């Protein structure tokens, strides 16, 4: 394996990780602040992608499509918080899982009802299609570089929001003591709605950004949701910093595992068996990583017990 290929794969892992962070950030905030397991987070990702595809199809503008994804997912998030989720805060996790699983089904069938069963078209803007040549002669798709950049900017913005703004203080307060912050006169239910909508908007943005290079179809959110749960478990539930580190770890492990493991097995095995075993093990690699992290830090890397 040449160094250039390795660097390219590291970039791929980074891009994947940054995308996962957008998903995991919302999930971990919602779990941290409200103690809610939201399985429907993947549906908000899908809502973002479909909104983007619809708007891009109607207007042809990718920027408008991204705004639409943010808005649609935030509105959908706020709506389900007001209508459904609000009733679940005091219930146990099993009830939450049941209700949000029902939301997945409702969103999936609702989306199919509106948009049909066939995947939608959403393409990257012409200006960003094709590769750029990076220093060292690496050819890398321009759009993926943009995703890395957008993800890092949003991560930075989110850290600033949590660390330096009043709403951030309230979110952190809500994480550490829900009853106390309510007793201090903060409108806790409004805070919950805002946090939920914020998490939803990030998921929707991720859906739109990724939808442009993948397929916009019903059920696209669930595979990502599973990875996002792995990320927040590794990072420590409720921690934005943990979500960031966890997402990058998962992204890099998944990408590099898939690339390197078949080669490693190939050194002492017959080629096609090495491919089969290597890729099977690569699919497990992030779960092995999660198990390893939990073994040494049962609350995750940045979690508090």
């Amino acid at each position: 394996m040449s160094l250039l290929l390795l660097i390219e794969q590291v970039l791929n892992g980074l891009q994947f990780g940054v995308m996962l962070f957008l998903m995991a950030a919302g999930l971990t905030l919602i779990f941290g602040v409200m103690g809610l397991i939201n399985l429907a987070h993947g549906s908000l990702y899908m809502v973002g992608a479909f909104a983007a595809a619809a708007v891009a199809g109607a207007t042809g503008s990718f920027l408008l499509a991204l705004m639409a994804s943010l808005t649609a997912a935030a509105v959908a998030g706020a709506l389900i918080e007001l209508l459904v989720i609000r009733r679940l805060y005091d219930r146990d996790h099993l009830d939450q899982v049941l209700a949000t699983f029902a939301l997945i089904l409702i969103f999936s069938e609702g989306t199919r009802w509106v948009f049909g069963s066939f995947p939608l078209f959403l393409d990257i803007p012409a200006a960003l299609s094709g590769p750029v040549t990076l220093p060292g002669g690496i050819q890398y798709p321009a759009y993926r570089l943009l995703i890395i950049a957008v993800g890092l900017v949003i991560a930075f913005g989110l850290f600033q929001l949590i660390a330096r703004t009043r709403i951030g203080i309230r979110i952190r307060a809500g994480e550490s003591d829900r009853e106390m912050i309510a007793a201090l006169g903060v409108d806790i239910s409004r805070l919950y709605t805002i946090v939920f909508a914020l998490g939803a908007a990030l998921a929707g943005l991720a859906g739109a950004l990724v939808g442009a290079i993948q397929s916009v179809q019903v059920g696209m959110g669930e595979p990502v949701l599973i990875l996002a749960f792995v990320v927040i478990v590794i990072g420590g539930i409720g921690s934005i910093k943990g979500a960031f580190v966890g997402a990058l770890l998962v992204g890099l492990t998944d990408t590099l595992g898939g690339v390197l493991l078949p080669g490693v097995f190939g050194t002492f095995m017959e080629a096609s068996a090495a491919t089969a075993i290597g890729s099977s093990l690569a699919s497990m690699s992030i779960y092995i990583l999660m198990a390893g992290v939990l073994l040494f830090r049962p609350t995750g890397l940045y979690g508090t017990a």
Partner: protein
Amino acid sequence: MKLRSLMLAAGLAALASVGLADGHAGKVKVGMITTLSGGGAGLGIDVRDGFLLATKMAGNENLEVVVEDDQRKPEIAVQLADKMIQSEKVDIMTGIIWSNLAMAVVPAATAQGKFYISPNAGPSALAGKGCHPLYFNVAWQNDNLHEAAGAYANDAGYENSFILAPNYPAGQDALTGYKRMYGGALAGEIYTKLGQTDYAAEIAQIRASGADSVFFFLPGGMGISFLKQYAGSGVDLPVVGPAFSFDQGILQAVGDAALGVKNTSQWNKDIDNAANKAFVEGFQAEYGRLPSLYASQGYDAANLILSAMAEADVSDADAFRAALAAAKFDSVRGDFKFGSNQHPVQDFYVREVIKEGDVFTNKIISASLTDHADAYAAECSY
């Protein structure tokens, strides 16, 4: 249009549930289990629509169809099959799209004396040692389209292919099928994760491998993702694949990235015969969209059953089986016959993705394999 097809299906289902008790001479009840919700729903909907179109065009009142949604889950498919066999008392079953679901349902159904006509899934296990006198496949054996792609790669002069497929039985069948026909060397062979949507790592490996062509089998959404990312990566090696990543349902979602790509299929809408013409026109008139190969398979499955009904009574299993095996129907593929293991012996074509007006579709550019049977027929004995 969608609403109309739904109503048609609902109407037929309602009809079926109040239908006369079975046992009346000439009546045939078909139980269709297919995928109508979830990620792979487009395929099942096309099979169902093609099937119902054929029954509607035939206007045969002795054929009842019950349609159920398996949600692409084997356990649900098994429950539905039990229900259809025990309480609906169907005579014939059909509809399953995915090989893993077919493996869960078909052996049990045929063991209970029900005919099974597969409109899509053709796992090697059911074509070879596990074949059954009551099991017919009207589409293809899983390896076939990949074998056709391998044969095309030879014709095109490719000598160093990079091949990839998801790591599950049909994916392994795919690479096996391609390698069976392809005579050149392999620049690389990768199994991706099933349901994977990001192929940046694989595309980087393709770029570094020095291959002269790429063969991939990534059905449904996986193929959309791969093609879009491949087009954006700047790698410009020729790509070839089976029709599953280039069917009518997903081409619009891939867009320009698919333009000019060669793919192999047993059917296309421009095959020149009267049956195909009637099918393509009828499908567009009924549903307002172009048919896919899945729709053509559903349509052929219904016509196969209708042709057997004209020859024999379903209660006489031996006679009905012989009538099915004779395949006396006008297939949209033109010549069609069953081999010794009741899988098709048919022609395969190379298609190219083109744009007709605003719509992306396929056009046949050459023949790939003629009168091609599958590699497992010899292992089958009844």
